[in-house]
């Protein structure tokens, strides 16, 4: 890959239930968000990479909350940077897959509906 890259080291859980870290190099353009980088990975590298988002850019849906370098951020607001960034799911919520955690209020989950 020529040009500046952002290196995203992403905490994932593989099919066997093992927690692994997988690193993807993403072309870096100034002004992009971490969410832009994650979406690029899905189209160009691995469509199974899981993360939550709905509103893409507007910080309206509040779904894309993750840890970047151990800090809680919205992926749509966090700037992509031309360096290694460590991405992980929220630590205090049940993990569903990769960066996706169970963030809905308990009363709005199917598991409770029965």
């Amino acid at each position: 890959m020529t040009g500046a890259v952002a290196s995203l080291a992403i905490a994932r859980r593989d099919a066997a239930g093992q927690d692994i870290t997988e690193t993807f190099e993403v072309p870096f353009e100034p002004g992009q968000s971490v969410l832009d980088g994650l979406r690029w990975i899905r189209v160009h590298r691995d469509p199974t990479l899981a993360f939550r988002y709905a509103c893409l850019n507007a910080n309206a849906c509040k779904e894309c909350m993750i840890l970047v370098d151990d800090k809680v951020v919205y992926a749509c607001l966090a700037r992509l940077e031309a360096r290694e960034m460590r991405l992980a799911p929220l630590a205090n919520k049940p993990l569903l897959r990769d960066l996706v955690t169970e963030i809905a209020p308990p009363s709005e989950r199917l598991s409770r509906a029965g």
Partner: protein
Amino acid sequence: MTRPALHLETDILVIGSGGAGMYAGLEAAGRGAKVLLADRSLIGRGGATVMAMMTVAAAIGEETPDHWKHHYKDTLSAGRGLCNAVLARLLCEEGPQVIRQMDEWGIGWARRDGHIAQVHAPGHDRARCVYVDFLNTGPALSKTLRTVVHKQSGVRRIGDLLIVDLVRSKGAVTGAVALDMTTGDPVTIAARATIVATGGLTRIYRRNSASANMGGDGYALALRAGARLIDMEFVQFFPIGHLAPRMIGLDPIMWDPFRYKLGGRLLNGDMEEFTENYGTVEDGSYVITRDNATYAITKEVEAGRGSPHGGAYLSFMHNSEAELKSAFGPVVDKLKASGIDLTRMPVEVAPIAHYHMGGIAVDERMETGVLGLLAAGEAVGGANGANRLSGNAITEALVFGRRAGRSAAENLERGRVAPDFKLSDAAEALDLVSASGVESAECNTAAILADLQALMSKDVGPFRTQHSLERALSGIARLEQCLGALPVGSPAAFDLARLDWFDLRNMSLVARVVTECALERAESRGAHQREDFPGLLETWRCNQFVTMAHGRPVVSRGPRLADLEAAE
């Protein structure tokens, strides 16, 4: 046959929890019905409502005397002769009621001198549009409805639930098969009535202004369940969607409220005003309608006079920092964080897919003609004809949502409901949700989705030709072949590649429907501009309808519309 992991029963299933879905649920539950409000995202946070940064049109007459008939007249005029008069009238006549109701529920409409403030938006004959400062209309609306829904014990809310197909029995809809996104498992839902409130289809375009879940799934669900779609060729492009510089944390349609308040100047790449060359003199005010502005910007770019990224400049450099701050407060700081100082630089804007005028054909009770199936909000087609008046989308969501909820509850009271749900009717959809297809490594659905968006933007945008539309149809066929008949991978929690497959199943069908309707309509009208048929033709003053026959969409032409009676 596959057994569902879970079976739910309800009186009324509402699919989608934007403004229309939440209002429908509230209204039905308020009349004693048991409601299940399902959304593929979080409840009340996905869809288009939460993204609405702009204004809501209703003739409440607080700013200046008004009457719903004036709003109705403007709506018909914007619709370029194609509005369904009954639906348009309903929107305008009941709009004030839902705006007042939202006020009572504490939405916090912006006020001035003790009354609700209303601004004058393009296409309206007077100041008619209410809003919540600053750029907070949609989030405030969603939050207010979420709070009211939360207190309504008759509404059970379930997020992360993707509806895959409606279930039919003897021509009626008896419920749905869903995919529990948190596990990948199938779920069945028995319902006496189902309300589709899934919004529009902007996700089939690359640059769009709505959530990632607006892929036209409701249109596909309704079509496969036997309902008719109307006006599917009319996709509204919002002319001044943000293009550059890259900006985060704000919706790309945010420049609309800036223009309402401050006017702004639309300039070409040579920093010259140009809309007067296309029939609209702006002179620092904001008067140009959406279809005309989209046309003017696109033609200017084609003539080699676009901005560097292929749009137009929008400039507020004539406004002082104090004016900007007073009009938009914290938003000015957010822009600065993205390196945008409006007193020093223009931004670049370009048309962006924004709203769908077409949708599910309904009557004034929001019934589709298929027993047990109703629709509400942007999912409904017809009210806005060939071009939607600005400010009508949220009004439509609330008015049609309320009406759909009421109709479904009334039908329940009268026993005019779908027959019993039977598991055998759900077999095909259940098998699909449980099926295992090729591995995602062999079929990158995220890339296919990006390809679909690119081809729709290129060939089925606001400007079309027979050649571009036929090219799009072969492109769609190629993508469909790539996708195959079975979902990629196997059932699992939050498998986005697999979820994309289910989305693409709907998106490719809806993209095909839009393209085929656009190919048929050999004229230019409102949001549908055929470069090979530039004029508006009286013979085309009719709607097109789409039904499903033998697994394929079929387009047919409705009767010529009689002259609509203008509001008196």
